[in-house]
Protein backbone atom coordinates (compact mmCIF):
# COMPACT_ATOMS: atom_id res chain seq x y z
CA UNK A 1 0.00 0.00 0.00
CA UNK A 2 1.19 3.48 -0.81
CA UNK A 3 2.59 5.47 2.09
CA UNK A 4 0.13 8.31 1.54
CA UNK A 5 -2.86 5.93 1.88
CA UNK A 6 -1.50 4.62 5.18
CA UNK A 7 -0.92 8.14 6.51
CA UNK A 8 -4.34 9.31 5.35
CA UNK A 9 -5.99 6.39 7.16
CA UNK A 10 -3.89 7.33 10.19
CA UNK A 11 -5.25 10.91 10.12
CA UNK A 12 -8.87 9.79 9.64
CA UNK A 13 -8.63 7.29 12.49
CA UNK A 14 -7.03 9.94 14.71
CA UNK A 15 -10.08 12.16 14.18
CA UNK A 16 -12.45 9.22 14.70
CA UNK A 17 -10.70 8.26 17.96
CA UNK A 18 -11.32 11.74 19.40
CA UNK A 19 -15.10 11.33 18.87
CA UNK A 20 -15.18 7.70 20.05
CA UNK A 21 -13.10 8.41 23.15
CA UNK A 22 -15.45 11.25 24.09
CA UNK A 23 -18.40 8.86 23.81
CA UNK A 24 -16.47 6.23 25.77
CA UNK A 25 -15.67 8.65 28.59
CA UNK A 26 -19.09 10.25 28.74
CA UNK A 27 -20.64 6.81 29.32
CA UNK A 28 -19.16 6.85 32.83
CA UNK A 29 -20.39 10.33 33.64
CA UNK A 30 -23.87 11.53 34.32
CA UNK A 31 -23.97 13.05 30.83
CA UNK A 32 -25.06 9.75 29.27
CA UNK A 33 -24.42 7.05 31.85
CA UNK A 34 -25.31 6.58 35.49
CA UNK A 35 -22.21 8.22 36.95
CA UNK A 36 -18.63 7.03 37.42
CA UNK A 37 -19.01 4.48 40.24
CA UNK A 38 -22.21 2.89 39.05
CA UNK A 39 -21.03 3.07 35.43
CA UNK A 40 -18.23 0.64 36.19
CA UNK A 41 -20.30 -1.88 38.15
CA UNK A 42 -20.65 -5.41 36.80
CA UNK A 43 -24.40 -5.07 36.15
CA UNK A 44 -24.08 -1.84 34.21
CA UNK A 45 -21.17 -3.08 32.16
CA UNK A 46 -22.91 -6.35 31.26
CA UNK A 47 -26.11 -4.42 30.41
CA UNK A 48 -24.12 -2.09 28.22
CA UNK A 49 -22.37 -4.93 26.44
CA UNK A 50 -25.76 -6.44 25.63
CA UNK A 51 -26.71 -3.23 23.83
CA UNK A 52 -25.83 -3.41 20.07
CA UNK A 53 -25.16 0.35 20.01
CA UNK A 54 -22.29 0.03 22.49
CA UNK A 55 -21.08 -3.11 20.73
CA UNK A 56 -20.69 -1.09 17.55
CA UNK A 57 -19.06 1.82 19.40
CA UNK A 58 -16.54 -0.44 21.13
CA UNK A 59 -15.79 -2.39 17.96
CA UNK A 60 -15.12 0.85 16.14
CA UNK A 61 -13.01 2.18 19.03
CA UNK A 62 -10.99 -1.03 19.21
CA UNK A 63 -10.43 -1.06 15.45
CA UNK A 64 -9.53 2.66 15.35
CA UNK A 65 -7.16 2.52 18.32
CA UNK A 66 -5.40 -0.64 17.22
CA UNK A 67 -4.97 0.43 13.60
CA UNK A 68 -3.81 3.91 14.60
CA UNK A 69 -1.43 2.49 17.20
CA UNK A 70 0.05 -0.18 14.96
CA UNK A 71 0.57 2.24 12.08
CA UNK A 72 2.35 4.48 14.60
CA UNK A 73 4.60 1.64 15.79
CA UNK A 74 5.34 0.75 12.16
CA UNK A 75 6.35 4.36 11.45
CA UNK A 76 8.67 4.46 14.47
CA UNK A 77 10.36 1.17 13.54
CA UNK A 78 10.73 2.36 9.93
CA UNK A 79 12.91 5.22 11.14
CA UNK A 80 15.42 2.75 12.54
CA UNK A 81 15.49 0.58 9.43
CA UNK A 82 16.36 1.84 6.00
CA UNK A 83 16.59 -1.44 4.12
CA UNK A 84 13.51 -2.21 2.02
CA UNK A 85 13.62 -5.92 2.83
CA UNK A 86 13.65 -5.25 6.58
CA UNK A 87 10.77 -2.84 6.19
CA UNK A 88 8.68 -5.42 4.36
CA UNK A 89 9.47 -7.97 7.09
CA UNK A 90 8.57 -5.44 9.80
CA UNK A 91 5.27 -4.70 8.05
CA UNK A 92 4.36 -8.40 7.92
CA UNK A 93 5.19 -8.92 11.59
CA UNK A 94 3.29 -5.79 12.63
CA UNK A 95 0.14 -6.69 10.68
CA UNK A 96 0.21 -10.30 11.91
CA UNK A 97 0.36 -9.14 15.54
CA UNK A 98 -2.33 -6.56 14.71
CA UNK A 99 -4.74 -9.25 13.44
CA UNK A 100 -4.13 -11.45 16.51
CA UNK A 101 -4.69 -8.56 18.95
CA UNK A 102 -7.77 -7.39 17.03
CA UNK A 103 -9.37 -10.85 17.20
CA UNK A 104 -8.45 -11.14 20.89
CA UNK A 105 -10.00 -7.72 21.56
CA UNK A 106 -13.17 -8.56 19.64
CA UNK A 107 -13.83 -11.75 21.60
CA UNK A 108 -15.45 -10.11 24.70
CA UNK A 109 -17.56 -7.90 22.44
CA UNK A 110 -18.80 -10.75 20.26
CA UNK A 111 -19.39 -13.25 23.10
Amino acid sequence: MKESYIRFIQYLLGAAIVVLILIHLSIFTSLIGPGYELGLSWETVSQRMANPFYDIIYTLLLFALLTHGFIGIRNIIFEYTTSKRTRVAVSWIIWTIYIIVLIYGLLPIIK
Partner: protein
Amino acid sequence: METIKNVKFRIKRWIPEDGRFRVDTFEVPVFKGMTVLEGLIYIKENLDPSLSFRRSCRMATCGICGIVINGKPMLACSTQILHLQSDTITLEPLKNLPLVKDLVVDHTPFFEKQKTIKPYIIRKNDLDEYWNPTREYKQTPREVEEYLQFSYCLTCALCYAACPTSGTNKDYLGPQALMNAYRFIADNRDEGLLLRLEIVDSPDGCWGCHLAGSCSDVCPKGVDPALAIQILRKMVVEKDLGYLEERKGAQLVPPLPYVEGVEKVEAPKFTVRGAKKKAEEIQTKYLS
Protein backbone atom coordinates in the same frame (compact mmCIF):
# COMPACT_ATOMS: atom_id res chain seq x y z
CA MET B 1 39.58 48.81 14.04
CA GLU B 2 39.21 49.39 17.75
CA THR B 3 39.13 46.22 19.83
CA ILE B 4 36.08 46.11 22.09
CA LYS B 5 36.84 42.91 23.98
CA ASN B 6 38.51 39.52 23.71
CA VAL B 7 36.27 36.56 23.00
CA LYS B 8 37.22 32.90 23.45
CA PHE B 9 36.59 30.63 20.45
CA ARG B 10 36.11 27.05 21.61
CA ILE B 11 36.43 25.07 18.41
CA LYS B 12 35.43 21.41 18.27
CA ARG B 13 37.78 20.16 15.54
CA TRP B 14 37.46 16.85 13.76
CA ILE B 15 40.85 15.17 13.51
CA PRO B 16 40.57 12.62 10.69
CA GLU B 17 43.92 10.95 11.52
CA ASP B 18 42.74 10.16 15.06
CA GLY B 19 39.09 9.62 14.14
CA ARG B 20 37.89 11.83 17.01
CA PHE B 21 37.17 15.41 17.98
CA ARG B 22 39.61 17.75 19.72
CA VAL B 23 38.58 20.99 21.38
CA ASP B 24 40.96 23.96 20.94
CA THR B 25 40.46 27.36 22.50
CA PHE B 26 41.68 30.61 20.95
CA GLU B 27 41.39 34.17 22.17
CA VAL B 28 40.27 36.60 19.49
CA PRO B 29 40.23 40.42 19.74
CA VAL B 30 36.80 41.51 18.55
CA PHE B 31 35.89 44.81 16.92
CA LYS B 32 32.43 46.18 16.26
CA GLY B 33 30.70 44.37 13.40
CA MET B 34 33.24 41.51 13.35
CA THR B 35 31.72 38.24 12.16
CA VAL B 36 32.47 34.71 13.33
CA LEU B 37 34.05 34.05 9.93
CA GLU B 38 36.41 37.00 10.42
CA GLY B 39 37.27 35.52 13.82
CA LEU B 40 38.12 32.21 12.16
CA ILE B 41 40.23 33.99 9.54
CA TYR B 42 42.04 35.84 12.36
CA ILE B 43 42.82 32.51 14.06
CA LYS B 44 44.08 30.98 10.80
CA GLU B 45 46.25 33.99 9.99
CA ASN B 46 47.65 34.63 13.47
CA LEU B 47 47.21 31.68 15.82
CA ASP B 48 46.83 28.34 14.05
CA PRO B 49 47.35 28.07 10.27
CA SER B 50 46.24 24.42 10.33
CA LEU B 51 42.64 25.32 11.16
CA SER B 52 40.29 24.25 8.33
CA PHE B 53 36.96 25.82 7.52
CA ARG B 54 35.05 26.68 4.36
CA ARG B 55 34.24 30.17 3.14
CA SER B 56 33.70 31.93 -0.13
CA CYS B 57 31.43 34.94 -0.67
CA ARG B 58 31.43 36.37 2.90
CA MET B 59 27.99 37.91 2.30
CA ALA B 60 25.47 35.11 3.03
CA THR B 61 25.01 34.26 -0.63
CA CYS B 62 27.03 31.12 -1.30
CA GLY B 63 26.03 29.27 1.90
CA ILE B 64 29.27 27.36 2.28
CA CYS B 65 30.42 28.71 5.68
CA GLY B 66 27.66 26.99 7.66
CA ILE B 67 28.81 25.78 11.08
CA VAL B 68 27.22 25.16 14.46
CA ILE B 69 27.66 28.30 16.57
CA ASN B 70 26.72 28.01 20.24
CA GLY B 71 24.68 24.90 19.45
CA LYS B 72 22.73 26.36 16.52
CA PRO B 73 23.57 25.94 12.82
CA MET B 74 24.35 29.37 11.41
CA LEU B 75 26.33 31.03 8.65
CA ALA B 76 29.67 32.18 10.04
CA CYS B 77 29.79 35.12 7.62
CA SER B 78 26.47 36.64 8.63
CA THR B 79 26.78 36.13 12.40
CA GLN B 80 28.33 39.00 14.29
CA ILE B 81 30.32 37.97 17.35
CA LEU B 82 28.98 40.76 19.56
CA HIS B 83 25.40 39.84 18.67
CA LEU B 84 25.96 36.46 20.32
CA GLN B 85 26.39 38.30 23.66
CA SER B 86 28.80 35.74 24.99
CA ASP B 87 32.46 35.82 26.05
CA THR B 88 32.94 32.25 24.85
CA ILE B 89 31.74 31.02 21.48
CA THR B 90 31.52 27.31 20.77
CA LEU B 91 32.00 26.26 17.15
CA GLU B 92 31.35 22.81 15.74
CA PRO B 93 31.06 21.31 12.24
CA LEU B 94 27.56 20.84 10.83
CA LYS B 95 25.76 17.76 12.11
CA ASN B 96 24.22 14.96 9.97
CA LEU B 97 26.96 15.26 7.32
CA PRO B 98 30.21 13.27 6.94
CA LEU B 99 33.15 15.02 8.59
CA VAL B 100 36.24 15.93 6.57
CA LYS B 101 38.54 17.98 8.80
CA ASP B 102 38.09 20.47 11.65
CA LEU B 103 34.96 22.44 10.71
CA VAL B 104 34.74 21.11 7.16
CA VAL B 105 32.00 18.63 6.25
CA ASP B 106 31.21 16.76 3.05
CA HIS B 107 27.99 18.06 1.46
CA THR B 108 27.75 15.18 -1.05
CA PRO B 109 24.82 13.29 0.61
CA PHE B 110 22.95 16.57 0.89
CA PHE B 111 23.30 17.37 -2.82
CA GLU B 112 22.63 13.76 -3.84
CA LYS B 113 19.28 13.96 -2.08
CA GLN B 114 18.51 17.26 -3.73
CA LYS B 115 19.18 15.64 -7.11
CA THR B 116 16.58 12.92 -6.51
CA ILE B 117 13.67 15.39 -6.54
CA LYS B 118 14.76 16.68 -9.99
CA PRO B 119 15.45 20.30 -9.11
CA TYR B 120 14.77 21.81 -12.53
CA ILE B 121 11.81 22.83 -14.64
CA ILE B 122 10.28 19.78 -16.33
CA ARG B 123 8.43 20.37 -19.60
CA LYS B 124 6.63 17.57 -21.41
CA ASN B 125 5.93 18.77 -24.91
CA ASP B 126 8.01 21.74 -25.95
CA LEU B 127 11.42 20.07 -25.62
CA ASP B 128 12.91 21.96 -28.58
CA GLU B 129 11.96 25.21 -26.94
CA TYR B 130 13.42 23.92 -23.69
CA TRP B 131 16.89 23.49 -25.16
CA ASN B 132 16.82 26.26 -27.77
CA PRO B 133 14.68 28.96 -26.22
CA THR B 134 13.14 31.47 -28.63
CA ARG B 135 10.22 32.62 -26.52
CA GLU B 136 9.39 33.16 -22.83
CA TYR B 137 7.12 31.42 -20.35
CA LYS B 138 4.25 33.57 -19.20
CA GLN B 139 4.39 34.18 -15.47
CA THR B 140 2.49 36.83 -13.55
CA PRO B 141 3.91 38.48 -10.39
CA ARG B 142 1.30 36.55 -8.39
CA GLU B 143 2.54 33.26 -9.84
CA VAL B 144 6.10 34.20 -8.91
CA GLU B 145 4.93 34.87 -5.34
CA GLU B 146 3.81 31.22 -5.12
CA TYR B 147 7.38 29.96 -4.98
CA LEU B 148 9.47 33.09 -4.42
CA GLN B 149 10.40 32.52 -0.77
CA PHE B 150 11.43 28.93 -1.53
CA SER B 151 13.71 30.08 -4.34
CA TYR B 152 15.80 32.04 -1.81
CA CYS B 153 17.39 28.77 -0.62
CA LEU B 154 21.21 28.94 -0.58
CA THR B 155 21.67 25.16 -0.24
CA CYS B 156 23.78 25.89 2.83
CA ALA B 157 22.57 22.66 4.55
CA LEU B 158 21.83 24.43 7.85
CA CYS B 159 18.27 23.02 7.78
CA TYR B 160 19.66 19.57 7.07
CA ALA B 161 22.06 19.86 10.02
CA ALA B 162 19.29 21.05 12.34
CA CYS B 163 16.78 18.36 11.31
CA PRO B 164 16.37 15.63 13.96
CA THR B 165 14.93 13.19 11.40
CA SER B 166 17.96 13.60 9.13
CA GLY B 167 20.06 12.74 12.18
CA THR B 168 18.27 9.45 12.83
CA ASN B 169 17.30 8.33 9.32
CA LYS B 170 20.12 8.55 6.81
CA ASP B 171 17.74 7.93 3.89
CA TYR B 172 15.39 10.77 4.81
CA LEU B 173 15.40 13.29 1.96
CA GLY B 174 15.75 16.18 4.35
CA PRO B 175 14.06 19.58 4.57
CA GLN B 176 15.99 21.21 1.75
CA ALA B 177 15.27 18.56 -0.89
CA LEU B 178 11.59 18.39 0.07
CA MET B 179 11.30 22.17 0.10
CA ASN B 180 12.99 22.25 -3.29
CA ALA B 181 10.48 19.71 -4.62
CA TYR B 182 7.69 22.05 -3.60
CA ARG B 183 9.54 25.03 -5.04
CA PHE B 184 9.37 23.46 -8.52
CA ILE B 185 5.84 22.12 -8.04
CA ALA B 186 4.67 25.64 -7.16
CA ASP B 187 6.36 27.06 -10.25
CA ASN B 188 3.71 27.46 -12.96
CA ARG B 189 6.27 26.75 -15.72
CA ASP B 190 6.82 23.24 -14.40
CA GLU B 191 4.95 20.10 -15.48
CA GLY B 192 6.52 17.56 -13.13
CA LEU B 193 3.94 17.67 -10.35
CA LEU B 194 2.92 13.99 -10.32
CA LEU B 195 6.48 12.78 -10.82
CA ARG B 196 7.76 14.73 -7.81
CA LEU B 197 4.80 13.78 -5.62
CA GLU B 198 5.59 10.15 -6.44
CA ILE B 199 9.19 10.68 -5.27
CA VAL B 200 8.31 12.40 -1.98
CA ASP B 201 5.48 9.99 -1.10
CA SER B 202 7.51 7.63 1.09
CA PRO B 203 8.46 7.11 4.76
CA ASP B 204 11.81 8.71 3.83
CA GLY B 205 10.10 11.55 2.00
CA CYS B 206 7.54 14.06 3.21
CA TRP B 207 6.03 11.52 5.64
CA GLY B 208 9.30 11.26 7.57
CA CYS B 209 9.03 14.82 8.92
CA HIS B 210 8.44 15.05 12.69
CA LEU B 211 7.27 18.65 12.60
CA ALA B 212 10.17 19.81 14.77
CA GLY B 213 10.33 23.01 12.71
CA SER B 214 14.04 23.49 13.39
CA CYS B 215 14.71 23.72 9.63
CA SER B 216 12.62 26.86 9.34
CA ASP B 217 14.09 28.21 12.56
CA VAL B 218 17.71 28.08 11.37
CA CYS B 219 17.27 29.15 7.73
CA PRO B 220 19.39 32.28 7.18
CA LYS B 221 17.13 33.43 4.34
CA GLY B 222 13.82 33.00 6.13
CA VAL B 223 12.70 30.10 3.96
CA ASP B 224 10.09 27.86 5.59
CA PRO B 225 10.86 24.24 4.61
CA ALA B 226 8.51 22.92 7.33
CA LEU B 227 5.60 24.68 5.60
CA ALA B 228 6.61 23.28 2.21
CA ILE B 229 6.71 19.73 3.64
CA GLN B 230 3.21 20.09 5.09
CA ILE B 231 1.90 21.41 1.76
CA LEU B 232 3.53 18.43 0.02
CA ARG B 233 1.71 16.06 2.37
CA LYS B 234 -1.57 17.79 1.61
CA MET B 235 -0.90 17.59 -2.12
CA VAL B 236 -0.01 13.89 -2.00
CA VAL B 237 -3.28 13.09 -0.21
CA GLU B 238 -5.25 15.33 -2.59
CA LYS B 239 -3.67 13.50 -5.51
CA ASP B 240 -4.74 10.14 -4.05
CA LEU B 241 -8.28 11.40 -3.56
CA GLY B 242 -8.38 12.54 -7.16
CA TYR B 243 -8.51 16.26 -6.47
CA LEU B 244 -5.15 17.01 -7.96
CA GLU B 245 -4.20 16.55 -11.57
CA GLU B 246 -1.12 17.35 -13.60
CA ARG B 247 -1.46 20.94 -14.70
CA LYS B 248 -0.41 22.35 -18.00
CA GLY B 249 2.72 24.44 -17.68
CA ALA B 250 2.82 28.15 -18.43
CA GLN B 251 2.25 28.98 -22.07
CA LEU B 252 4.95 30.35 -24.28
CA VAL B 253 4.73 33.96 -25.31
CA PRO B 254 6.94 36.05 -27.60
CA PRO B 255 9.69 37.85 -25.71
CA LEU B 256 9.28 41.49 -24.82
CA PRO B 257 10.60 43.78 -27.56
CA TYR B 258 14.20 44.79 -26.98
CA VAL B 259 14.90 48.43 -26.46
CA GLU B 260 16.90 49.82 -29.32
CA GLY B 261 20.56 50.19 -28.53
CA VAL B 262 20.51 47.59 -25.75
CA GLU B 263 22.48 44.49 -26.61
CA LYS B 264 20.59 41.19 -26.53
CA VAL B 265 21.73 38.88 -23.73
CA GLU B 266 22.50 35.36 -24.92
CA ALA B 267 21.50 32.33 -22.86
CA PRO B 268 24.48 30.89 -20.95
CA LYS B 269 26.27 27.93 -22.52
CA PHE B 270 26.47 24.56 -20.78
CA THR B 271 29.57 24.58 -18.63
CA VAL B 272 29.58 20.95 -17.50
CA ARG B 273 30.60 18.54 -20.22
CA GLY B 274 27.86 16.00 -20.93
CA ALA B 275 25.30 17.83 -18.78
CA LYS B 276 22.95 18.52 -21.66
CA LYS B 277 23.10 14.92 -22.87
CA LYS B 278 22.38 13.60 -19.38
CA ALA B 279 19.53 16.04 -18.86
CA GLU B 280 18.03 15.01 -22.20
CA GLU B 281 18.29 11.36 -21.20
CA ILE B 282 16.41 12.03 -17.96
CA GLN B 283 13.79 14.02 -19.83
CA THR B 284 13.31 11.29 -22.46
CA LYS B 285 13.15 8.58 -19.80
CA TYR B 286 10.52 10.54 -17.89
CA LEU B 287 8.42 11.13 -21.00
CA SER B 288 8.52 7.47 -21.99
